[in-house]
């Protein structure tokens, strides 16, 4: 099964993205815990694209494609903005005590994504940034 959605780059659309991913995975009868984890991973990447890659420019848009084959979930998020956004890998083990001491708000999103998904890749295709996430759903 597969499904697709296109959204403009406004953080108001994050709810729509989560509802879309939730609906897709619940239809595939996945547990609430797994569904929430995948929803979170997608939400984090999409929020990064909206805020950091596109500066919340609602004239830009993202395409999100979900494909579930047997137990293998593939997610592709394509950023149609003109700025390539190829973030370095997430901090594998952020020092959260230090984050607390500093009162730091950010820097955990991609760590969550990398801990939830089996594979996380950012690459360029046709001058667009693509994020590919995959996970075997047990």
């Amino acid at each position: 099964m597969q499904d697709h959605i296109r959204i403009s780059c406004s953080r108001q659309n994050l709810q729509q993205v989560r509802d879309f991913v939730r609906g897709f995975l619940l239809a595939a009868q996945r547990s609430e815990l797994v569904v929430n984890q995948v929803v979170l991973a997608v939400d984090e990447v999409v929020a990064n694209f909206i805020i950091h890659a596109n500066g919340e420019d609602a004239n830009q848009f993202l395409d999100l494609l979900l494909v579930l084959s047997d137990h293998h979930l593939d997610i592709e998020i394509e950023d149609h903005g003109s700025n390539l956004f190829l973030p370095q890998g997430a901090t594998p083990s952020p020092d959260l005590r230090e984050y607390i001491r500093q009162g730091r708000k950010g820097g955990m999103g991609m760590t969550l994504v990398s801990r939830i998904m089996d594979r996380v890749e950012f690459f360029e295709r046709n001058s667009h940034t693509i994020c590919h996430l995959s996970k075997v759903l047990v």
Partner: protein
Amino acid sequence: MGPIMKVTSQPSADTLTLVLDGELDASSAVVLDTELNKPGLLNYRKVLIDCQRLSYISSAGLGVFISHLQRLQDSDVKLVFYNMQEKVFNVFEILGLDSLMNIVPTAEEAQAA
């Protein structure tokens, strides 16, 4: 679309309870941040976060709590979470925040913390 996060403030003696209702993400985290930034917050001995109706949290929501924790600790204000749904607690667990934050199952335990 209406707001996806509602924060209700319930002051009582030396304790302030914030009841969260909805989804805490990069769009709605500002609502909670505003509540936690209020200067009167530091006059309480405890701030309890009722998470029963908190159905989702992203790193932006976690970041709001992390960014205020040291300030609260420096003022001897305890921050205690309770009634947390399993899927929300799981997000704290994935990062290891469950061992750094005070999270208890019930309102009674939060009051006693």
